[in-house]
């Protein structure tokens, strides 16, 4: 039996007793008249790995973007690491320092080298020394296995390499939670694996992760919990085994039928 704080892989129950890192209660969001999030309740525990899937427009990206407030919710409460997100910048700053995010389109800073990309936030947000920021950056670049690219510019790297740099850049802030917004969707097929392998490595180290992805193989092998969203609601959530073998709702079945058919 693994310790509660060190969840084992592959669907073993997540450490429910451990502390809650993210709590969403009755979260709602509209774009004008269109409701994108309908009464979302979600608790994420430390060390837990969640995969969120669902058809496009189901609100899954919006959900994770609300956690670091790239999108503002209009109703309900979101608490991250004990800080409730409100209208004030102070809470937002506290939350964003602890929450890393990886985007579909990498979003590396093209005018900075790989190393500078990784050093910027620790230097300017955390106020670490240059030597320290550089050491941290190199450590994480080694971890994503591209230290030799440190002095290149993002435009000189392949998509898979760029996404690994983006992961390293987030890790340099030493986040408590990592959010992934379709991290492999913009990649050529042959580059998907290197990014997924990096994410699996993170999972093995006990990182709390929320991934919006359609990589069901990843979900099966890494997630503690799979959440299915449709039309702004959480329709179903379960362990990967139950989710894939015995989906409860009709909408989940039809979604799985579509993405697993081929």
């Amino acid at each position, binding site marked *: 039996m693994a310790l509660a704080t060190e969840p084992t892989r592959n669907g073993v129950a997540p450490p429910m007793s451990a502390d809650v890192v993210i709590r969403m209660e009755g979260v709602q969001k509209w774009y004008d008249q269109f409701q994108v999030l309908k009464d979302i309740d979600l608790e994420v525990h430390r060390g837990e790995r969640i995969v969120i899937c669902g058809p496009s427009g189901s609100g899954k990206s919006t959900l994770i973007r609300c956690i670091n407030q790239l999108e503002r919710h209009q109703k309900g409460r979101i608490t991250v690491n004990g800080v409730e997100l409100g209208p004030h910048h102070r809470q937002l*700053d506290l939350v*964003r320092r602890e929450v890393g995010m990886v985007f579909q389109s990498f979003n590396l*800073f*093209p*005018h900075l080298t790989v190393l500078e990309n990784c050093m910027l936030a620790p230097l*300017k*947000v955390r106020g670490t020394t240059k030597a320290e920021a550089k050491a941290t950056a190199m450590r994480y670049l080694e971890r994503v296995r591209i230290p030799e690219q440190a002095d290149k*510019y993002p435009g*000189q790297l392949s998509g898979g390499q760029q996404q690994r740099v983006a992961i390293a850049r987030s890790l340099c*802030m030493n986040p408590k939670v990592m959010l992934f917004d379709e991290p492999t969707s913009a990649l050529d097929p042959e580059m998907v694996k290197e990014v997924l392998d990096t994410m699996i490595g993170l999972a093995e180290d006990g990182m709390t992760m929320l991934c919006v992805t359609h990589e069901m193989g990843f979900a099966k092998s890494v997630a503690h919990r799979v959440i299915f969203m449709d039309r702004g609601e959480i329709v179903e959530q379960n362990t990967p085994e139950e989710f894939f073998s015995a989906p409860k709702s009709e909408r989940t079945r039809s979604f799985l039928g579509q993405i697993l058919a081929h």
Partner: protein
Amino acid sequence: MIRAFGYNEFLFLLSAVQWTLLLSVIAFIGGGIVGLFVALGRTSDVKPLRLLATGYIQLFQGTPLLMQLFLVFFGATVVGIDMSPWVAAAVGLTLNTSAFLGEIWRGCIQSVPRGQWEAASSLGLRYPGLMRYVILPQAVKVAVPPTVGYLVQVIKGTSLAAIIGFVELTRAGQIVNNATFQPFLVFGIVAAIYFALCWPLSLLSQRLEARYAAPSR
């Protein structure tokens, strides 16, 4: 008594170029500093700032530069400030330039993809750092060619300062013409001098545009 247009008259025109250039430089630097704030206001999340900057730009783009110079020059007298044509021209041109540069730079700032703002924000950078380290360095690359191009407009705009009595190239032309009465020759030379100042800048702007349009490193 009519004088002939000779070497001395030509030298007089040439020496007036320094005032045209100095006024241009002042308008450009002043306009650039104010223009940066106008551009930041225009792209701000804060609505009052955005409206203020928009109004400012509309005001200066929607009225002739000459009227703006008149209003500064005579307006100062109305409120009891004795403003020399020099200062009035510098202030008027600075305001005008800032509105145009502000609008050009707004476009450059907005050309930086949304994802860059999101990535910087998600790393915890707040507005000043986000602008300084992420957005502006990328916007500057886009901004250089149109900004150099706009410098041509600034140089030509300084000719209007002649009307409020500031002796720069155009006003020097008028003075020489009053003495020699050879308008075609005199203003032909004045125009040729303007062209000699502006053309290289236009070429530079085109070259910069071609260079920055090339695929990035």
